[in-house]
């Protein structure tokens, strides 16, 4: 696929643990078209976070090819939002958001301007002077999102970013991410174990399964936007993915006996 921003071919990755090799991912192929909102689902431990770490260059794959093709000379190609916001507690909100800019050759005023812009985008402009511990869980996650957006990434990776939040906060943030994705033309890889969340957000949902993990299915979500929560078409798609994954889990339990 020529217009893919990410293409992964035959990726494998494992860890050595106490002398035995523990394969986490294998034979993984994935193309992500530029601008796509892709959700990645799969049970816990299947290697979703590991896949994102590979894309961030934080873990080297043991085999295969990972290519990321930025369209322009980007300041930073990919940015990651962690499950727990991981703000730096000794920095005020604005300084947390500006963190990734400190590698770049910008003046303090420019950094501040960009951080405030990013904060405004997530609706927290007034909170720039607070310490992270003074924010709610949802606000912290918004700041983490602003920190990632601030470096103007072409690829936004999100690792179960809203799983620790209560339902209303989570739904608000989901809509915010969709809005940002639409406005910024950024490609999003959104990892979640919440399948309803995946089908509501994404253009396409891929399911990882197996041990070592592989891509088990790839399902386009052909439902026009703006979407409505509880749309029966989304429910049908979610049910299908859930069935695939529970069949998968059942067969895995057989193995482990």
């Amino acid at each position, binding site marked *: 696929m020529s217009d893919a921003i990410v293409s992964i071919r035959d990726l494998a990755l494992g860890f050595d643990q106490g002398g035995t090799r523990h394969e986490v991912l294998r034979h993984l192929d994935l193309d992500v078209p530029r601008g796509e909102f892709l959700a990645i689902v799969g049970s816990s431990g299947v290697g979703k976070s590991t896949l994102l770490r590979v894309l961030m260059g*934080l873990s080297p794959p043991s085999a295969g090819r990972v290519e990321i093709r930025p369209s322009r000379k980007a300041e930073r190609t990919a940015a990651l939002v962690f499950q727990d916001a991981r703000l730096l*507690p000794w920095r005020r909100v604005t300084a947390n958001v500006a963190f990734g800019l400190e590698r770049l050759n910008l003046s303090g005023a420019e950094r501040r301007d960009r951080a405030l812009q990013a904060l405004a985008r997530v609706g927290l402009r007034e909170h720039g002077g607070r*310490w992270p511990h003074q924010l709610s869980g949802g606000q912290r996650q918004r700041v983490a999102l602003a920190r990632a957006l601030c470096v103007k990434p072409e690829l936004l990776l999100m690792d179960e970013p809203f799983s620790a939040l209560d339902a209303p906060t989570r739904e608000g943030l989901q809509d915010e991410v969709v809005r940002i994705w639409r406005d910024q033309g950024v490609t999003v890889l959104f990892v979640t174990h919440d399948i309803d969340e995946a089908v509501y957000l994404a253009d396409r949902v891929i399911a990882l399964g197996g041990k070592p993990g592989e891509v088990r299915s790839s399902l386009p979500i052909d439902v026009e936007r703006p979407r409505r929560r509880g749309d029966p078409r989304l429910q049908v798609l979610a049910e299908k993915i859930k069935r695939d994954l529970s069949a998968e889990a059942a067969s895995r339990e057989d193995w482990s006996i």
Partner: protein
Amino acid sequence: MPRNRAAPFILGAGGLAAFLAVWQVAPSVGLVSSTLLPKPSDIPAAFAAEVRNGLWLEAVGLSLGHYLLGLLCGGTAGVALGIASGMSVRFELSLAWIVRVLRPIPGLAWVPFAILWFGVEQSAAVFIIAIGVFWIVFFASQGAIRGVDRELIEVADAFGFTGAFAKLRKVMLPAALPGILVGLRTALGQAWMSVVAAELFGVAGLGQRMTQASSLLATDIVVVYMLTIAALYGAMDTLFVFVQGRLLAYRP
């Protein structure tokens, strides 16, 4: 639990007053001889005499100099080596046995070498104080760096701060700061103990003055300097806690 803001102060003052009362009464009723334990009421006069003859100010000035320089040298070396060995396992392993050999040697045992290397000079006292400070700060810094949350270090990596120095500056040092400060605060007290020890062998200062006074059985003067140390330590510690509060203002 104390209910109002004055309560901690009142309780503290009450405890101190009770302590002084017992101390005053014990020699007065002949429980102990007043040569062995001077009465608190004798202390102000002894203090005034020491100040008048200029010995107090001189001793305090010299000792404060030893103290601050020893703290600075030992603290700097302790923080630097502690951080380096906390960041690099190889460095830590190569230091491991040097540390095990040197660590248990008490500051006083270094006196012969301090005299040989520096003479009976100020720098000898500074050296002995610095050694005591060094170990405390070294272990505190090493532990604090080692204990930095890996997940925060990963944030540095994720945003492109991949070099060791960038990581140290952006994440590890600020994250380790609370632990390093705890070490420095412990060293603040330890260093005063070393001051007295370091001045026992002839370097001028309040330790030397205390030794002179005790050999003349002028126990009231000894107590004057004990209280002087307590007051100086109290002032330093209060100042330190204030600065620490400023540096760690981000904490709830």
